[in-house]
């Protein structure tokens, strides 16, 4: 059999899975690990050490139907997302300014490097010393997100096509046209990927901050209580809630970003189609 006949033989070709098949496969994988978890929890035989997934689901319903559930989620979400949007604005503006003025970039370089390298626990303790625990998660999630957004915006601006910028200079394009037609398509892929990374990061760091700062009425305080009273099922049920809220917000935010790009007829930017 020659190489070409092997290539042309459909039976030998790698099968391309449909979306439905992929979804079924993913569901089966999750079901498999839930089963493993259940079996291990039965073997361990102690809900304190390893609670079963069935018990977690039961607790999850108790948590969701608690009258204070939405209030608790809102308390944490408002602060964590507040930190995210503050970092988004600050990172974008400073990224743009730093791309124009090297002094600003030089000044910000050690700051961003320090934020990236410092353990989040150090920041949490420092912020607790300087401010109240109430707004701790705002500051911590902002600190974690800012370097990611700032560096990606800066990188995106620098990746703008030099030849197009020269064309803009020759044809005397206004600043707004340059922003919209040259810089925005260059920054968009960097910005979208930075947002995707940051949204997970802000929830992780925000909840970690709340666990240490334990502001009343926050998800972090519930986590802390669960730890004190050894309520493993409650801890895991709230973890599911945090993951669900984080993923839902990420999906919603990314959808809105894509809609904005579609409105600007730049949806191809994210597919890497460039001239």
């Amino acid at each position, binding site marked *: 059999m020659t190489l070409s006949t092997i290539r042309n033989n459909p039976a030998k070709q790698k099968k391309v899975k449909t979306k439905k098949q992929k979804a079924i496969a993913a569901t089966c994988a999750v079901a498999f690990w839930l089963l493993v978890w259940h079996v291990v929890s039965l073997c361990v035989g102690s809900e304190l050490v390893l609670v079963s997934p069935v018990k977690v689901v039961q607790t999850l319903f108790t948590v969701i139907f608690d009258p204070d559930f939405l209030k608790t989620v809102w308390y944490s979400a408002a602060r964590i997302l507040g930190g995210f949007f503050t970092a988004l604005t600050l990172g974008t503006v400073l990224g743009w300014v730093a791309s124009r003025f090297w002094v600003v970039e030089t000044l910000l370089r050690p700051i961003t490097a320090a934020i990236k390298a410092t353990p989040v626990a150090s920041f949490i303790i420092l912020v607790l010393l300087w401010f109240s625990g109430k707004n701790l998660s705002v500051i911590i999630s902002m600190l974690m997100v800012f370097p990611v957004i700032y560096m990606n915006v800066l990188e995106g601006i620098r990746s703008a096509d030099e*030849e197009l910028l020269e064309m803009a200079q020759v044809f005397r394009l206004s600043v707004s046209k340059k922003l919209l037609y040259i810089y925005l398509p260059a920054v968009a892929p960097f910005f979208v990927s930075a947002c995707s990374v940051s949204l997970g990061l802000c929830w992780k760091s925000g909840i970690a901050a709340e666990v240490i700062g334990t502001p009343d009425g926050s998800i972090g305080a519930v986590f802390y209580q669960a730890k004190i009273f050894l309520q493993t099922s409650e801890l895991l049920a709230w973890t599911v809630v945090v993951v669900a809220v984080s993923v839902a917000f990420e999906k919603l935010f990314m959808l809105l970003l894509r809609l904005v790009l579609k409105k600007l007829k730049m949806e191809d930017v994210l597919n890497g189609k460039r001239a």
Partner: protein
Amino acid sequence: MASVHNLIVKRGEAEILKNFSAEFPEHQVTAVSGRSGCGKTTLLSVLLNLLPADSGEIHGFQKPSAVFQEDRLLPYLTAAKNISVAAGCTETAAEKALLQVGFDPEDLKKNAVQLSGGMARRVSIVRAMLTSGDAVLLDEPFKGLDDLTREKVMQFVKENLKNRTTILVTHDPRDAKDLAAAKIIEMETEK
């Protein structure tokens, strides 16, 4: 009158232009030709204020427009939008001009990234010609166009030069002849 005197442009250690002097008569076409690498594009870049000269005297233009060697189109905009954004004309005027240079009406809906090389070239030419100003600098504008298309585009360029000072960089003697170049500068490669 635009001119350069004793122009020296270096790229690293290499001298791209060495004591180059030339004058470009107003409201006329000056053709510039010469072997590849002799500095024709560099000369246009200096005149467009895109490249600084190492030394020499430069009298450039107030408001030039240009056809670059590369098409340099905004990839996520249609051909007409590309022209209207740069030239400041309406999209309808841009579409009319594109049809004049042999554009298929169906291609008007495509983004620049989806256009063929020949179509992108025509967009780039129309953009330069519809932009108002005192000069047009054309860097091998008809490169890659088939004879029939070249004829249509040449006709369009002639109609839209509007007495502007024009510098035409070309390897093809037909271009200088068809645009009735008043002056031809043959650049030499320095060895």
